[in-house]
């Protein structure tokens, strides 16, 4: 489960330490998203216990029984008695321990880490499609329950009888119980809705990111852009694809660079692998599309401002510095 952590009144240095602590917890199976407090529901609120705005947010969070951590640098003010508090000058390990204790109080346990991954991956539909070379090399009839679809690897399309079937099957990509069989001539009469296979896998994987095991940590590469035209719910998939087209990278470095949640990066990798587009660094070397011969002009401040405005207008999540 994804833990929603908000911050209020916290200075940049403290926020950096908080992010480091969350990254360390990620390695132990926690999945934490940090955002500024906006008054909406969250699991944990971290405030500066000596900031007026932080104390205001703290009061509201307490009334809503949200777990709180108040950062202090000196004697604990009376307003922050109760809840957790933490001297922000403490080493990052103390931050990790305080966060872990706070989460355990809310009965939030980390997701089961990797050792079960191999066993579960062999049963989950999307993972089977990603890992089984036979399934990736032929057109298939895929069924789950009483719904069926054609997975046309040769054309990069998925075909189902109706939009409802397609959406239902997409929502079950992270489940076990799929049946895959080679497509026979008699079965090609399944007409109806045709959609991009890459987008189908990407949207399905991201919607069920928590159910999928973490992808392997090897360095990977894309040789072609996945067809993400209809994968509009998570624009981070574009950023992940771009990185993998430019160079080899593993999911941890991608998550670190883009600040995209590790499980979301992993979900994208499962989708790209199922599409047959993802290559390990050994297989991908030497065939990638080269970067253009002419180097782009150095970006001026004006260009950077224009890019930011265009990105905001078209909903492109910018990489955080």
């Amino acid at each position, binding site marked *: 489960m994804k833990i929603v952590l908000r911050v209020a009144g916290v200075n940049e240095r403290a926020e950096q330490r908080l992010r480091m602590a969350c990254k360390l917890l990620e390695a132990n199976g926690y999945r934490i998203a940090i955002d500024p407090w906006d008054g909406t529901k969250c699991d944990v609120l971290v405030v500066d216990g000596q900031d007026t705005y932080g104390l205001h947010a703290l009061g509201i969070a307490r009334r809503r029984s949200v777990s709180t951590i108040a950062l202090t640098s000196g004697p604990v003010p009376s307003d922050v008695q109760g809840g957790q508090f933490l001297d922000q000058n403490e080493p990052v390990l103390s931050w990790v321990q305080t966060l872990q204790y706070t989460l355990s109080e809310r009965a939030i346990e980390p997701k089961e880490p990797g050792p079960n991954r191999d066993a579960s991956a062999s049963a989950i539909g999307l993972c089977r499609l990603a890992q089984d070379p036979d399934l990736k090399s032929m057109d298939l009839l895929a069924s789950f329950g009483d719904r069926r679809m054609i997975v046309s690897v040769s054309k990069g399309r998925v075909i189902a009888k109706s939009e409802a079937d397609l959406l239902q099957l997409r929502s079950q990509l992270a489940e076990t119980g799929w049946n895959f069989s080679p497509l026979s001539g008699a079965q090609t009469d399944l007409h109806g809705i045709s959609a*991009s296979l890459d987008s189908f896998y990407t949207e399905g994987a991201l919607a069920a990111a928590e159910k999928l095991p973490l992808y392997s940590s090897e360095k990977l590469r894309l040789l072609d*852009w996945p067809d993400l035209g*209809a994968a509009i719910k998570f624009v981070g998939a574009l950023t992940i694809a771009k990185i993998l*087209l430019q160079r080899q990278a593993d999911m941890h470095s991608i998550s670190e660079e883009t600040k995209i949640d590790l499980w979301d990066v992993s979900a994208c990798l499962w989708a790209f692998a199922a599409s047959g587009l993802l290559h390990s660094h050994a297989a991908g070397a030497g065939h990638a599309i080269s970067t253009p011969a002419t180097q782009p002009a150095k970006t001026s401040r004006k260009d950077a401002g224009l890019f930011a405005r*265009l*990105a905001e*207008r078209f*909903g492109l999540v910018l990489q955080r510095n």
Partner: protein
Amino acid sequence: MHIGGVKLVFAGPVGAGKSTAIRAIADTEPVSTEMPLVDGAIGDKTTTTVALDFATVILDEGAPLFVYGLPGQQHFEFIYSIVIEGALGVVVLLNGRDLDVSNQCERWLHTIRGINKSIPIVIGVTQTDSNPDFTLKPIREVLRRYQSPAPAFTVDARSRDEIAQLVRALLLAM
């Protein structure tokens, strides 16, 4: 003819959905130079653009992004370099029902690269849901031959979100 300001260009053959796509993302009513097809309707298409499509997208603080749609007919090629000059990038829309869609892709890549070797390009293929035999593979092969890292996506030209996705991919290519 002087065309200035920050601009984005949509290019591609007749019937690919350029006018539709521009209308999908525009914040102002597009100025469209449509005339009836002289040889009669082609499916649902009854008109064609005989000059430029033009619309604006409003960025924050009211600054406009000018969006131009190039006419797909070859006899208008003389204006391509004028419109493309100084553009942020080009969205090339292709019709997924065309049997020679990969040749169209190559033609447009060649034309645009002949004008500007480094302008960012993204490929959008429309109407693929009504062509059961469509595949992106020949288009990807063209892009590899051109050593072009351009994204190629299948999109619905009527969808604001999917056309915006093309623009997002273009921004990442900048």
